[in-house]
């Protein structure tokens, strides 16, 4: 088949089904990297995205960590923002009205220090017009009590998910941390407790220090590494999680380009979230969507669904078949 006949006239179909959620394309902006959407109003129409995941919301406003809160590292950055956010009340009255005017599914990332806080958040967000799903942050490594406890232990993770499940009818996404020995165990626990989907990964726990001042580069000392440096870790986690569970998985970690995004889909992620790249190029998500369309055209694929999970893990030696023929020929001689 030649290249021209592989391409089609109508645009390829990028839409994906994530449990009960139907998205026009698999590209979302990750929590904490797009604020409450309005910050990007000058750069992009949110309606062009598959979904928006807003900055993590807690029951009460949080001031965040003292500075320095971020540091750049090779092909990455470490942040310890400390989950600064306006709190759920201000989110509902000041931030959500803007998001409602945008034609985009809004996923609200929630975080708490106790199971009860998660439950109260879920209860207050349940049935609110303009919210498509909740993403449960059980994995943010930034704040000592801010969730690392729940995300690194299967029982604790299941406890939060189960309680939130009872409190809301909204679709639930559980966001997993990579800072565990076996991410599959946490993934199974979250799904068994009622999570409709999983997203992975949150940032990778990391430290940076300065040899001249003999000080840590972050006031919080430990932060979360993001950016291209963590993409291979994120791909490995996505691959492992997909081996453990049947539900839709959203891939996150170091996605800068359409190629990066497609790698996660190839492994089997049903959608992806773009995080750090938004800081560097506020229009990067639109470029990724365009790049995906172009890839599907060139590859002669009409639906992105035909590409998702198409990873061929058989280890095939290219000359194996010919070698067999050769052996047969030689044995005949």
């Amino acid at each position: 088949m030649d290249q021209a006949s592989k391409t089609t006239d109508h645009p390829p179909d990028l839409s994906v089904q994530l449990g009960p959620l139907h998205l026009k394309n698999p590209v979302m902006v990750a929590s904490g990297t797009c604020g409450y959407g309005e910050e990007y109003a000058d750069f992009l129409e949110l309606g062009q995205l598959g979904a928006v995941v807003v900055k993590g919301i807690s029951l009460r406003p949080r001031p965040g960590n003292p500075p320095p809160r971020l540091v750049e590292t090779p092909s990455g950055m470490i942040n310890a923002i400390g989950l600064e956010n306006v709190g759920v009340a201000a989110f509902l009255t000041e931030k959500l009205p803007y998001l409602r005017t945008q034609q985009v599914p809004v996923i609200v990332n929630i975080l708490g220090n106790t199971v009860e806080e998660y439950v109260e958040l879920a209860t207050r967000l349940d049935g609110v017009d303009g919210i498509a799903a909740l993403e449960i942050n059980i994995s943010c490594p930034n704040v000592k009590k801010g969730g690392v406890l729940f995300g690194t232990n299967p029982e604790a993770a299941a406890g939060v998910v189960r309680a939130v499940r009872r409190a809301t009818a909204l679709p639930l996404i559980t966001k997993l941390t990579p800072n565990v020995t076996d991410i599959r165990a946490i993934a199974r626990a979250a799904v068994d407790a009622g999570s409709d989907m999983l997203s992975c990964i949150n940032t990778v726990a990391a430290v940076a220090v300065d040899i001249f001042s003999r000080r840590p580069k972050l006031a919080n000392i430990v932060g979360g590494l993001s950016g291209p440096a963590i993409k291979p870790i994120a791909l490995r986690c996505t691959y492992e999680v997909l081996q453990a569970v049947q539900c839709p998985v959203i891939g996150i970690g170091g996605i800068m380009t359409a190629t990066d995004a497609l790698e996660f889909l190839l492994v089997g992620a049903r959608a992806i979230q773009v995080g750090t790249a938004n800081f560097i190029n506020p229009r990067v998500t639109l470029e990724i969507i365009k790049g995906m369309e172009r890839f599907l055209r060139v590859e002669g694929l009409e639906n992105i669904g035909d590409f998702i999970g198409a990873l061929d893990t058989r280890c095939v030696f290219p000359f194996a078949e010919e070698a067999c023929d050769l052996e047969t020929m030689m044995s005949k001689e």
Partner: protein
Amino acid sequence: MAMVQDDARVVDQQEVAERTFRLRLRSERIAVTARAGQFVMLQVHHGTDPLLKRPFSFHRIMPEEGLIEILYRVVGRGTWCLSQCSPGNHLKIVGPLGNGFTLPEKDDRTVVLIAGGIGIAPLHELMVQLTSNLQADKRHAIHLFYGARTAAELIPTHLYSRLGIMVHCSTDDGSSGYQGYVTQLFELMVNQERHRPALLYACGPLVMLYHVARWSLAQNVPSQLSLESLMACGIGACLGCALPAPHPDDPMTDSYLHVCKDGPIFKAGSIAWTKLQRQPTTPQIYLYN
């Protein structure tokens, strides 16, 4: 004022003082709306290391020509990469960002600008705007106090004196002008009842700004200070550029401002100076390792 992302063409790059570069970029869309004291996020490199854009204030804004200038000192890998780019290169740029300086309402009062080292960067455009539409004799009421570690780091001051303003220089080692800190020179001259300002503008190292802020609060002289911070986005999304601020009700509670949105220009009283951390600086000899 809308922020835009643009592909800026490098028009010119000159080393104007030791390790200090003036970069001229063509971006019509940013030049037409930019104001003194605002900044841009500028890509310094094609690739993922260094990963982030860097914030730079406007050194000059030339809306008619569609040009902007930034002035920067090479302090690390990012600025080193930037110093290697040549005319014809394109760099991704986002701006204009932040609040910018507020110009004084009356022209006839003494205005003092204090610059420490590369802190001269945003003050040049401010000086141009302060002196435009101002008669020559009134320009003498504008004073620039400009300090650096050594003479080689000073931008040639005729650039500023030719605007008609009064320029007073200091260097830590005495190689040019007054020997000592620029804040010492300023206070010395003010204490001699000369040039007592009605309004202060300042940009420089944190410790210099701290002294300016203390003076301005003690003397009850309004000040506009240009601060900087590491930042990832510049548009209020990453929340990485936090500065401690006095909490309006409870001094024990943490409260933060963000340099990108609430600044980069702050009044002296809006920052909790005692909660600020000293910025680590990399010794020069290790910069290129």
